[in-house]
């Protein structure tokens, strides 16, 4: 536990807390508003009478959303995606961050690989070639299309490599002296000391998988396979007003029904609201410092 040695004087502390509280309120408002909408009646929501409390309380929109097999199905797909994709991404990230965190003398090809990966962040051939490669590798319409093509988040690699580099060299040298090879150093020395950053990255990866919507819409051949956010896109996107015809009436009515949308959004946020506090304690631990003194 990172004990703050310096405590703020009273007034400044109060000011600090006040500003933070204000920020928190600002951020909380749309969430609370969405929550209120989801429990309000359609008429109250549609005429803008809902602010932070439900008006004409009803659980109708939740019942509607939860009864919809498409919603539940896509929820399951997303859940699976996060549970499968997150460990895979993290493993890949760790395996690449370690070599990249070595010095140039220790790993002569280090710069080459650093640029090798970095270039891929900057340059992209565009949608068609990407689609074609995914198709050639047989992943179109497969669940794995949501996992494999994006399995190496290069930005996370950079963050982790940086974190590895900031761990005092003495620890590694001590381990090497005891005969430890790279694998041992990585898994027994570096990783345990990197829990905050690992927790952070895990959160980002999980959230990234949870929020991704475009790949689902484009790579799947059937809406049955859409992950959650892809499905939500379809009930939230506004049709081009110049192209709307009478045939879109039913869709328009769904889209303008704010309470259902609110309920869907809120249910979609729940898993994250659950994971996040669980991972939070890792952000504020600084275990490694203890071992330096030893």
């Amino acid at each position, binding site marked *: 536990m*990172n004990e*703050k*040695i*310096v405590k*703020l004087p009273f007034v400044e*502390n109060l000011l600090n*807390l006040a500003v*933070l*509280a204000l*920020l*928190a309120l600002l*951020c*909380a408002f*749309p*969430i609370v508003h*969405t929550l209120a909408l989801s429990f309000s009646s359609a008429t109250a929501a549609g005429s803008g009478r809902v602010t932070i409390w439900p008006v004409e309380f009803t659980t109708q929109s939740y019942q509607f959303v939860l009864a919809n097999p498409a919603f539940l199905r896509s929820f399951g797909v997303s859940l699976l995606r996060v549970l499968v994709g997150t460990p895979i991404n993290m493993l890949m990230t760790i*395996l*690449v961050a*370690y*070599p990249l965190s*070595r010095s140039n003398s*220790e*790993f002569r090809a280090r710069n080459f690989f650093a640029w*090798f*990966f*970095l*270039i*891929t*962040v900057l*340059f*992209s*051939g*565009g*949608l*068609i*070639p*990407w689609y074609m*490669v995914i198709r050639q*590798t047989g992943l179109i319409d497969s669940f794995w299309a949501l996992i*494999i093509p994006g399995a*190496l988040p290069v*930005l996370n690699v950079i963050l982790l490599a*940086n974190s590895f580099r*900031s761990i005092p060299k003495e620890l590694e040298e001590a381990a090497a002296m005891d005969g430890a*090879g790279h694998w041992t150093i990585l898994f027994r020395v570096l990783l345990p000391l990197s829990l905050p950053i690992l927790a*952070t990255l895990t*959160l980002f990866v999980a*959230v990234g998988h949870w*929020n991704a919507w475009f790949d689902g819409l484009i790579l799947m051949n059937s809406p049955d396979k859409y992950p959650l956010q892809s499905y939500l896109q379809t009930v*939230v996107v506004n049709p081009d007003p110049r192209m709307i015809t009478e045939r879109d009436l039913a869709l328009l009515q769904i889209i303008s029904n704010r309470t259902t*949308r609110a309920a869907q*959004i809120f249910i979609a*946020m729940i898993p994250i609201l659950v994971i*996040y506090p669980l991972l*939070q304690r890792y*952000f*504020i631990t*600084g275990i490694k*410092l203890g071992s*330096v003194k030893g």
Partner: protein
Amino acid sequence: MSARRGFWRELPLYVMLAPAVVLVLVYAYGPMVGLVMAFQRVLPGKGIFGSPWVGGENFAFVLQMPTFLQVLRNTIFIAGLKAVAGVVVPVTVALMLNNVTGRLFKRTVQTIIYLPHFLSWIILAGIFVDILSPSDGVVNRMLGLAGIQPIFFLGNDKIFPWTMVATDVWKSFGFGTIVYLAALTDIDPTLYEAAVMDGATRWQQTWHITLPGISSTIIMLSTLSLGNILNAGFDQIFNLYSPLVYRTGDIIDTLVYRTGILHNQYGVATAVGLFKSVVSLLLIGIAYKLAAKWADYRIF
């Protein structure tokens, strides 16, 4: 030090890299072959190898659009502001949070500020139009209490870019704050002990210990955000802009979208993407050199 050098010592590193390299070769470098489309007039069904070569025509097409220069300026302005705010705000908030002793308060605030990240711009657009309304929006009502005239945040083309920056920061500062908080825990507390013993004030401590302690993270994140310099935020702007603010709010991606380029002119779309990538590369390269020179810091 160990005398075991050479290939065998490095072998485990190569083994570790192997799966990722294969993955990246297939799914990142593979598609990059498609970059040639930037120089072709892409015909449907003919693919990369069958479409005719047109050289710089696609680029010319975009560059000679009447509003292109304006749009480029807007993109850089908005993205630049977002990059700066995207560092300043999270760092400040992280520092503020770091000073909080109450664990519950700290965790609660941390959780809440991360939440806006999860709402899509489609939803937020509706909320913001309401909140920022000059006639009965909450924000203007508050401003009114302070005697300030109503501001048309979304409809005034001078204010619009700032509105975009502010709302985007609001949505994403939670992310950066987390990273900086994690970085803050890396700072050795003995440094603070020593400083206190030397009689350093809190400001001095922040300036001389805290900020340098996370400077590497700051530099790294801001450099990486340079890679995004020409992505000023399509989702956000697309859902919040209107003809009233095209002059200052139209960015490269919304311009491309409106002209239907994405729909059928893949060559032009690729050209735009290539243009953005090259600019990003240049900027990152410059930042890398600068950081190496001034801060003696290798970003990666």
